[in-house]
C-alpha cells in the first residue's frame, strides 16, 4: 500500500501552483522572486524547471531504500511504510552525510542558522498518513502531478508511454533508479537535460555500504584471534628464550637477580 507521486512533464503547464502549495504546507515564504528561483533550496523544496516549452519538476524522490536514511548515524531520516521519507530534527547532529550521499543531492541545509536543520520535501508525510494526497498533487490543475498507489501509477505510466510512444521517451524515471523511488517521472526529453543523474544503477545504494559493514564482525573476531595468537606465540618465544638464557648462562642469571 505504498503511495507515490507520478509527474508527467508533458501535461505540465509550468503554472508553479505545486511550488506554491508546497510552500504553504511547509510554512515557507513564497513570492515572485522565490518563484523565479530554479533551484531546490532550504526554503524551496520543489521546483518546476523550464527549458523552452519543456518542463520538469524536482522534489525529493522519496526512494524505496533511501540513501539518506541508511547513512544517517542517528536515524533522523526514516522511510515510512506509506512512502514518505521523513526527517526528525530532534535526532539530527548536523553531520550532513545525507546531503553528500543522496544520489539526487536533495537534502538542503540552513547554512545561515546557528541551530540548523536539514530541509527537504517529505512527500507531505502528515497528509499522506491522514489519507490525504500531497499538497503539490492537490494544487496541480492539470493532473501532471498525480498522487496514488505506486503500483497503480506505474501501470498508468506504462499505459501512457504505450499509448503515445511519440510523446514520451521510453523511460519511467524512478521505476528502477537506485532500486526505485516513490516519485515517478515521465518526459518527452532525456531527464539528464534537467539535471537528473542518468548513470544510476538499479542497485539500492545502501547495499554498497553493506558490503563493507558486513565485514566488521570478521575484523573483530578473526582479527582479535589473529592478534591474540601472534602475541601468544611471540610472548611464549620470549619466555622460552629467557628461561634458556637463565639455565645456560649462570652469569646472566646472577645479573638478573641483582637487577
Amino acid at each position, binding site marked *: 500500500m505504498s503511495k507515490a507521486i507520478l509527474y508527467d512533464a508533458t501535461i505540465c503547464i509550468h503554472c508553479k501552483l505545486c511550488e506554491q502549495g508546497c510552500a504553504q504546507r511547509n510554512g515557507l515564504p513564497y513570492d515572485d522572486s522565490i518563484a523565479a528561483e530554479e533551484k*531546490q*533550496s532550504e526554503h524551496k523544496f520543489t521546483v518546476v524547471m523550464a527549458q523552452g516549452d519543456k518542463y520538469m519538476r524536482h522534489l525529493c524522490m522519496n526512494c524505496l531504500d533511501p*540513501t539518506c536514511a*541508511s*547513512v544517517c*548515524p*542517528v*536515524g533522523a531520516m526514516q522511510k515510512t511504510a506509506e512512502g514518505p521519507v521523513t526527517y526528525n530534527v530532534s*535526532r*539530527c*547532529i*548536523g*553531520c*550532513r*552525510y545525507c*546531503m*553528500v*550521499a543522496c*544520489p539526487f*543531492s536533495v537534502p*538542503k*541545509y*540552513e*547554512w*545561515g*542558522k*546557528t*541551530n*540548523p536543520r536539514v530541509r527537504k520535501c517529505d512527500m507531505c508525510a502528515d497528509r499522506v498518513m491522514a489519507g490525504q494526497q500531497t499538497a503539490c498533487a492537490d494544487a496541480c490543475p492539470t493532473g501532471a502531478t498525480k498522487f496514488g498507489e505506486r503500483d497503480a501509477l506505474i501501470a498508468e505510466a506504462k499505459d501512457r508511454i504505450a499509448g503515445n510512444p511519440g510523446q514520451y521517451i521510453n523511460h519511467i524515471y524512478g521505476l528502477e533508479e537506485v532500486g526505485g523511488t516513490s516519485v515517478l517521472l515521465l518526459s518527452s526529453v532525456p531527464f539528464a537535460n534537467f539535471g537528473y*543523474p542518468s*548513470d*544510476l544503477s538499479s542497485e539500492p*545504494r*545502501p547495499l*554498497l*555500504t*553493506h*558490503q*563493507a*559493514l558486513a565485514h*566488521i564482525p570478521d*575484523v*573483530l573476531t578473526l*582479527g*582479535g584471534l589473529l*592478534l*591474540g595468537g*601472534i*602475541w601468544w606465540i*611471540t*610472548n611464549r*618465544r*620470549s*619466555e622460552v*628464550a*629467557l628461561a*634458556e*638464557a637463565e639455565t645456560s*648462562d649462570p652469569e*646472566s642469571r646472577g645479573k638478573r637477580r641483582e637487577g
Partner: protein
Amino acid sequence: MSFPRITFWRVVLGAFLVAGFCATVLRFARGLGAATHLSNAFPWGLWVGFDVLCGVMLAAGGFTLTATVYIFHLDKFRPIIRPTVLTAFMGYVLVIVALFYDLGRGWFIWHAIIMWNPRSVMFEVAWCVMLYTTVLTLEFAPILFERLRLEKLLRIQHAIVIPLVILGVLLSTLHQSSLGSLYLIMPNKLHPLWYTAWLPVLFFLSAICVGLAMTIFESSLSSRHFGKQLELSLLRSLGRVLLVTLLFYAVLRFLDLYHRGALKLLAMRSYETNMFLLEVALALVLPIALLMIPRVRESAGGLYLCAVLVILGFITNRLNVTITGMEASAGVHYFPKWSEIAVTGSIVGIGFAVFGLAVKYLPIFPASGERSATPVPAASQAAPRLSHARP
C-alpha cells in the same frame, strides 16, 4: 616565569590562534554559512577533509607501533611507543574538537550513543572515535601516572595493556577503513580516479604508511627542537618497512585503477588528473624512488625528507577524495574561507605546541641518564637478551 622567546613559528602560531579565535566567534555566533564556503552543492569541506580525515590518518602511528611492540614483540621499537601514542591521542582529541566546529548541531553529538543506526558508516565512525579515544587515553595514561608517581594505577594499566592494544588495533583497522567506506555509497559523485570498492582497504594501508612516516617525522622534529631523538638504526628500520608498505600500496592502487579501466583517464588533462598526479608523485613515486637509494635510506635527513613527502602525499590523497574528486559532480569549485583555514591552522598549531610541551614536561622520549621507572613486563626484558642467548 620567563616570557617565551619569540621565534618565527611562534609568531605563525600566534597569528593562527588570533585568527582562529575570530573564526570561532564567527562560526558559533553566525553559523556555518558565515564561517565557511560550504553550500548546498558542497556540504563537506576542509574541516571534514583535513581536520577529520587527515587528523585520524595522522594518528595512525599509534596502532601501528603498539602492534609492532606489544603484539609482534619487536622490542627495539619500544622507545618510539610514547611519542606515537601521544600523537595518536592528541590527534583524536583534536579531531573531536574539529567535529564541534563542523557538525551543525555538535551539542547533540552524544545522540550516536543512544540513537543507533548500524546501517550507517558514519555510525561506525562515531563509535570508533569514541571507543578508540578511550583506548588511547588508557594507553597514554601511564605517561601521566609515571609523572604523578601513581604506582598502583600503573600496575593496573600494565595488567590490561595487551587486550587494550589488541582492541586499539582492531578499532583503528575499522576506523581508518571506515573513513574510506564513507564514500562507497556515492559512486556517481566521487571521481573515478578515486572511487573504488577498495577505498576502505586503501585508506587502511595508507594509514599504516602515514603512521610510519609520522613516527620518523616526529622523531626528527624532536631531535631538532628538543635535542631528544631516537637512534638512527630505529629510523632506518622504519624507513625500510615504510618502503615495503608504500610499494604494496602502490601496486594495489595501480591494479585497482587498471582493472577499473581508470588509467585511460590519465591521458586526459584535467584538474582531477593533475591533482591525482601530484598525489601519486608526493605519496608514492618520489618517496619510493628515494627510499630505494641506500644513501638516502640510511641518512637521517633522507628519511626525514621521505617522511614529509609521504605525509604531504597522503594529505593530498584525503583532500582529493573529499574535495577535488567531488567538485565535478557538485558542479562547483570549493576553496575554503579564511575562517576555515584559521580554525584548521589553529588546531594543527595547538597540536604542535602541545606535543612540544608534552615532550618537555612528560617522560615521552627516553632521555639519556634518567631512565623511566616504569615496571617493564618480563617479556620485554627478555627480548634484548634474545640475540645474546642464541648460540
